[in-house]
């Protein structure tokens, strides 16, 4: 799956977690702009993992701060 298609899927998955309706760009940060707490992160990561059938380990999550970085990571993890 290319970046655009991956991004479109992630955009749909993030919607229910974006409670404040923040406009999301590649530069949006999860902790800052989206105000995700650790519980939201866990549920959101689980939703992505299940949809793409991948593992995003805690070690990898630590490197992901922005939406754009997440999309890039998911593209890469799909191999």
């Amino acid at each position: 799956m290319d970046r655009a298609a991956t991004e479109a899927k992630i955009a749909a998955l993030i919607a229910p977690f974006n409670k404040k309706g923040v406009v999301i760009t590649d530069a949006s940060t999860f902790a800052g702009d989206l105000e995700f707490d650790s519980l939201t992160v866990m549920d959101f990561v689980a939703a992505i993992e299940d949809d793409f059938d991948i593992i995003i380990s805690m070690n990898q999550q630590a490197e992901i701060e922005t939406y754009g970085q997440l999309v890039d990571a998911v593209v890469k993890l799909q191999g």
Partner: protein
Amino acid sequence: MTDTMTAAPDLFSKFDALIEMRANLLSTGVTDPYGLVMEKVLSPTTAICNGRDTILLGTYNYMGMTFDPDVLAAGKAAFDAFGSGTTGSRCLNGTYSPHKDCEEALKEFYAMDHAMVFSTGYQANLGIISTIAGKGDYIVLDIDSHASIWDGCKMGDAEVVPFKHNDIEAMEKRLKRIPAGAGKLVILEGVYSMMGDIAPLKEMIRIAKENGAMVLVDEAHSMGFIGPNGRGVAEDQGVLDQVDFVIGTFSKSVGTVGGFCVSNHPKFEIMRLVCRPYVFTASLPPSVVATAATSIRKLMHGAEKRAHLWANSRTLHGGLKALGFQLGTETPQSAIIAVIMPDLERGAMMWEALLHEGLYVNLARPPATPANMTLLRCSLCAEHTAEQVQVILGMFERAGKKIGII
């Protein structure tokens, strides 16, 4: 120094939010829930706190062994015979015969081939997890795992993959996605200490084994009273023989301090040379391991105490529920009963009101708690009398009405 040079930040500024939160809470005049001092300890269930006779309902002293005469006598004898401390690592000058005897007691208690005693339970998790799961291996663990488990993961080099609390399907999906050929370690707890709920170990361990994983179970909060021989939740559910590593502590049912790992792995003894939190610290004082060994052997014959502790747990759980408190579990599953508070402020007020009634419980707050809850965590003791449990319920009723929670 010129104006263009920026001053280095104060390394403590990262704690500002917590400092402010604490200041706000204490400015309401509430007693600091994390500053309690016990002036006198009268028994496993009573102490004098702030000059007041207090029933202890937050000590994890499940089996009440802290004042057992045989345990105290063993400790005193070892103290006199071996001195106040070992001043050395288990690998060098820190292994005395009481340390070996304590490991023998653990092997008898669990009927397992190997036992290794650490200086604390925290170090047992830290050491075993960080040592056995290395680079390229995967750790699959419950998101509500204890801090010592998370810290063990953080200290090691394995990939760490959490799953939703007690969710069998979420665990299985993650296990199946691990790349072929990678080593796998599943980490579970028997009793989760925040809510006092138990894990569906039978199903989870079966799935872990089907997927080629080794299994580590932390039985800190179940040792001594869950299972026919008090070996924990895995024994109770009939799957202890499938567990590769049991982690436990001496600071709960055993009634002193220290931690351990028991295992049937044929190569287990190599841990004594490669596990850094075991090697690079001083061993426990001989009096401590002597008290632990005596206590562990007595716990093997604690069926009556176990039955009384279960009765206490059922009475308190049922009574609190009937009073209208919201509890962490629908049914009593362990000796921990978590009372869910509406928020931190009222939780702290309720904690203080109970202390004024003469009752000590643990106040647990985020981030240590699941789902950012504020909890009053009650842990029962086999030495609590049936009458004391009724007194405790009366205290909860008065305090709960005063604070407006029920």
